[in-house]
């Protein structure tokens, strides 16, 4: 299905990442957002609030993040494509409802423009410190998808991907931006509506009497009901059976929660996105994501200029984590350098996937600015030794 031209601002623009993300949401078909704006994500919904009345939709400024993160889910069940945006402190408050979205299989998108934490931290300055929180922040077992754009163009592109994944796999999907990417302005090309592929909502083709709201298809994902057209709709955060009714038996819990996890795990090859460059023959591979991947590229260029064989592996999906690919890299290189704007989050996944086959070296940063390329270069040279 192609994008609805009403929401697509086709053309070449000079946009910051926040505005590009908003345009991505509109192009993807988002017509509802409930938000409690917070720096550095405010501009996303500021633009959405201005733009959405022109395409037919709603923005509601809520009383807090708890309300923002649940209201959008009501809109989704009512038929809209919906999202909200936040940053660290707001993201922490949304955790309960992220679990609700996972449990109720509500297709929705959360944009987290990461700033330095913990707590109020650095409101206007960057970090990549919510990478584990996005994966594990709510209680219980569940899987999510998280994407990491490294430019305003990708803020546009990957927000569309996020909406498409949300519809396809029916789970909350996260656009994990950082303050630099959110506030930097670059060229953004928005294609014509007919060049933008949109995943439609997976509405059931069954008649109301045969429909079961949480009966999965072959891909382990259930179809959605047409609300208000005679379909039985019961949505609960309690453990539920295929009809959506609460059922607390361990066997029901086992089937449901395993499926919530498996629908992502078993489709991991279809979901995982990454950028790999000069991995073949590399002695060292640098793993990074978001804005850090651009600074890392500078360090990689410097190392290559010194004659070192350095590969690049950029996580585009941080979650699900490209475990297989990292394991393979680890089997062939001397070492892996992980650069991230935190004191060690995704590096734990890299270490787990590498399983001791290669040295793994973290180049951490507490946030507030990007790395110095020289610091990443130094780690590359030490690992190559």
């Amino acid at each position, binding site marked *: 299905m192609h994008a609805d031209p009403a929401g697509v601002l086709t053309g*070449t623009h000079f946009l910051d990442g926040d505005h590009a993300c908003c345009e991505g949401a509109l192009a993807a078909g988002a017509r509802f957002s409930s938000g409690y704006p917070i720096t*550095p994500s405010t501009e996303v919904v500021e633009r959405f609030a201005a733009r959405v009345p022109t395409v037919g939709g709603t923005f509601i400024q809520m009383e807090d993040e708890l309300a923002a993160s649940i209201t959008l889910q009501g809109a989704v069940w009512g038929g809209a494509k919906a999202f909200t945006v936040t940053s660290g402190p707001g993201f922490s408050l949304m955790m309960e409802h992220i679990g609700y979205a996972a449990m109720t299989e509500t297709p929705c998108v959360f944009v987290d423009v990461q700033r330095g934490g913990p707590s109020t931290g650095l409101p206007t300055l960057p970090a990549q410190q919510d990478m584990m929180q996005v994966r594990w922040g709510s209680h219980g077992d569940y899987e999510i998808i998280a994407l990491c754009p490294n430019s305003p163009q990708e803020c546009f592109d990957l927000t569309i991907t996020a909406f498409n994944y949300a519809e396809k796999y029916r789970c909350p999907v996260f656009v994990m931006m950082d303050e630099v990417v959110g506030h*930097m302005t*670059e*060229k953004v090309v928005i294609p014509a509506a007919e060049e933008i592929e949109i995943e439609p909502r997976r509405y059931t083709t069954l008649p109301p009497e045969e429909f079961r709201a949480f009966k999965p298809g072959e891909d382990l994902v259930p179809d959605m009901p047409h609300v208000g057209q005679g379909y039985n709709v019961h949505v609960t955060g309690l453990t539920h059976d295929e009809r959506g009714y609460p059922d607390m038996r361990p066997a029901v819990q086992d089937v449901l929660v395993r499926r919530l996890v498996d629908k992502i795990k078993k489709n991991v090859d279809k979901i995982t996105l990454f950028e790999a460059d000069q991995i073949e023959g590399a002695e060292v591979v640098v793993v990074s994501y978001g*804005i850090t991947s*651009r600074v890392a*590229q500078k360090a990689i260029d410097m190392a290559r200029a010194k004659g070192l064989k350095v590969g690049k592996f950029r996580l585009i999906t941080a979650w699900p984590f490209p475990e297989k690919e990292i394991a393979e890299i680890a089997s062939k290189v001397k070492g892996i350098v992980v650069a991230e704007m935190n004191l060690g989050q995704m590096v734990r996944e890299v270490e787990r996937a590498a399983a001791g086959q290669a040295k793994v070296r973290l180049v951490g940063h507490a946030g507030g600015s990007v790395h110095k390329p020289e610091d990443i270069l130094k780690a590359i040279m030490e690992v190559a030794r």
Partner: protein
Amino acid sequence: MPVTEIRIAGFGGQGVILSAIVIGKAGCIFQDGYSTMTQSFGPEARGGACSAQVILSDTPVLYPYVSTPDILVVMSQEAYTLFSPQIKGDGILIIEEDLVRIGELPPGVRVYSIPATRIAEELGKKMVLNIVMVGFFAAVSQAVDPEAMRKAVAASVPEAYRDLNLKAFDRGFEYGTKELSQVIVKQDSLVAVAAIET
């Protein structure tokens, strides 16, 4: 791989950010190339220091921040004090001459000055001082194709003020072209004087 790093700074409310948007837009949309614009984010809306950074390059920009600008544009004394120590040894300093008094600078730095606020007032709206600066920047820095800059101005301002802004751009550009030719004449005559003296 020519890369030009630019910092523009002044008071909040002078149009610092829009100046940077115009330059950035000219650099990647109205001519071939890449540009990245970032801005300082503080609590200030009007008054207080405000600065923006633009990196122009013919390859994709990797590192997003400017540390030692090739070109520094300052529209307030505070901005001058804060940022002039960073300027590259052979860089260009562009100042609003009624608002900035310069001190000692590295010998290689070329300084260009314009009474942009006065010119904007002559045009009837003090608000366009930033676009006067942008026109002046286009002339003296030659960092971006002037025609691309002019198009970027037209594309970045509200329709109702387009003509006024283009006029402001042109006035700044003319002022810059004149200043540049005088500098060249001055340099030529210095060379001539030097030749006579030797």
